[in-house]
């Protein structure tokens, strides 16, 4: 299926068509967030900025990808209602197209860590390539979540509001601004380790920053991804023919 990718690119191009920087506005606005929030909290925590900025940048970029996938994914059918009611295409095309769009955004944001590496040159090892595997697991998890949330949020329109409130709460409960172990409260750490997003961030962030996540982190993340994928596929298979009647 190549067409979702073409459609995703077209969507991205159209969105930034009348701007000078085009899709690189994505990178620029992310850069603004990374440097402003990074500098403030890095200084506040008294961390070494050469370590804190890359840590925060990778974390926030992965988080933004996951957050957007879930929030936009939960509305994908509602927003494609016109298409769905007039053009008989497989429903999953709309999900693929959205995923494609988010991957394109992620790709633009991925330039930032490269720039940061050129500045700070932290040691990277062969293990850094595990980040690709980590990202693959992350994408599988998000794809499953999108399939699942798109359906339940079409049926129950309140859910999207609940989910967006929950996601901003989860952002604070996931070690992205703060480092695991840095908050001197066992409660906070316990929450972080019960938080699925934490694992999905770690498998990308740790390899990129030159360390290797523990095996249990990999296994937990993989389990989350498989669970999410199965739930998404099961819901999709069960309800895809009903969705058009819910729009």
């Amino acid at each position, binding site marked *: 299926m190549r067409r979702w990718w*073409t459609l995703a690119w077209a969507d991205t191009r159209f*969105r930034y068509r009348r701007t000078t920087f085009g899709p690189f506005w994505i990178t620029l606005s992310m850069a603004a967030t990374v440097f402003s929030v990074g500098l403030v909290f890095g200084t506040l925590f008294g961390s070494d900025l050469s370590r804190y900025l890359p840590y925060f940048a990778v974390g926030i970029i992965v988080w933004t990808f996951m957050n957007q996938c879930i929030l936009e994914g939960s509305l994908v059918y509602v927003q494609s209602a*016109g298409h769905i009611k*007039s*053009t008989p*295409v497989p429903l999953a095309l709309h999900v693929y197209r959205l995923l494609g769009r988010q991957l394109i955004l992620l790709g633009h944001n991925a330039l930032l860590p490269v720039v940061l590496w050129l500045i700070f040159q932290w040691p990277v090892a062969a293990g850094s390539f595990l980040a690709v595997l980590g990202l693959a697991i992350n994408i599988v998890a998000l794809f499953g979540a999108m399939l699942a949330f798109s359906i339940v949020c079409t049926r129950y329109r*309140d859910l999207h509001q609940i989910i967006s409130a929950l996601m901003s709460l989860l952002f604070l409960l996931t070690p992205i601004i703060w480092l695991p172990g840095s908050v001197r409260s066992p409660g906070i750490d316990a929450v972080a380790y019960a938080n699925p997003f934490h694992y999905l961030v770690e498998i990308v962030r740790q390899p990129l920053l030159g360390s290797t996540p523990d095996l249990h982190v990999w296994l937990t993340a993989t389990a989350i991804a498989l669970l999410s994928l199965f739930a998404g596929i099961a819901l999709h298979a069960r309800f895809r023919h009903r969705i058009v*009647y*819910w729009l």
Partner: protein
Amino acid sequence: MPATAPVLSMTRLTLDKVGVDFPIYQTSARSLKRTALRTLVGGVIGSSVDTGCTVIRALHDVSLDLRPGDRVALIGHNGAGKTTLLRVLSGIYQPTSGAIHGAGKRAPLFDLQVGFDEEATGYECIQLRGLMLGIDRALIERKSAEIAAFSELGDYLDLPVRTYSSGMLLRLFFSIATSVEADIILMDEWIGVGDERFVEKANKRLQALIDRAHILVIASHSRPLISSLCNRGILLDGGRIACDGPLDTIFSAYGARQSA
């Protein structure tokens, strides 16, 4: 007499006791609160709580057999189920009961102007629409010139469609939709496009497309149109087929119902 397509064709469309039920969720029923509360109270009280879900039976027990050469007019007053039936025939709605079997490429020619990006140029609309319709890219490229020529939009095709007038927009989408060859054509009323001269040109193109197709199903209220186009009529009433047969039978049945 309307033209009939070659009879030696595999094209078929069969509905077997098809029903379509529309759940209409009131805001209260669609909300999670309502469902959660219903679960919480449960038991006796729960069963007395109104679910708030009205079901509209849009189609009921519809059985049809469409064969090559059929030029079918769907007749019935508003809300009789014509559009729903067209959507079932085009594969947009899956029947909630019964079954649909079909062979042949179907082209729904309704809601032509849906789902395009205002920032896309005319040419990009051609490509993206083609992609949505599942046409492969090489074919789109080849058709693109033909669509451009037919639409007569010229240099406008390089501009974003937000600069188009509504007439131009319709011309573009008509030209795209009618560039697709199909075995089964599904229409909700005739599509009239553009100014006086263009309308004639568009009518010819649409007629030629219909003549090449094996099956036509069109919902219409216009008797002259139906008479010139169709050889079979289906009268829908309250989501059921009230009458299926030659046009004159259908017209008199419809007339009798209206005067009754």
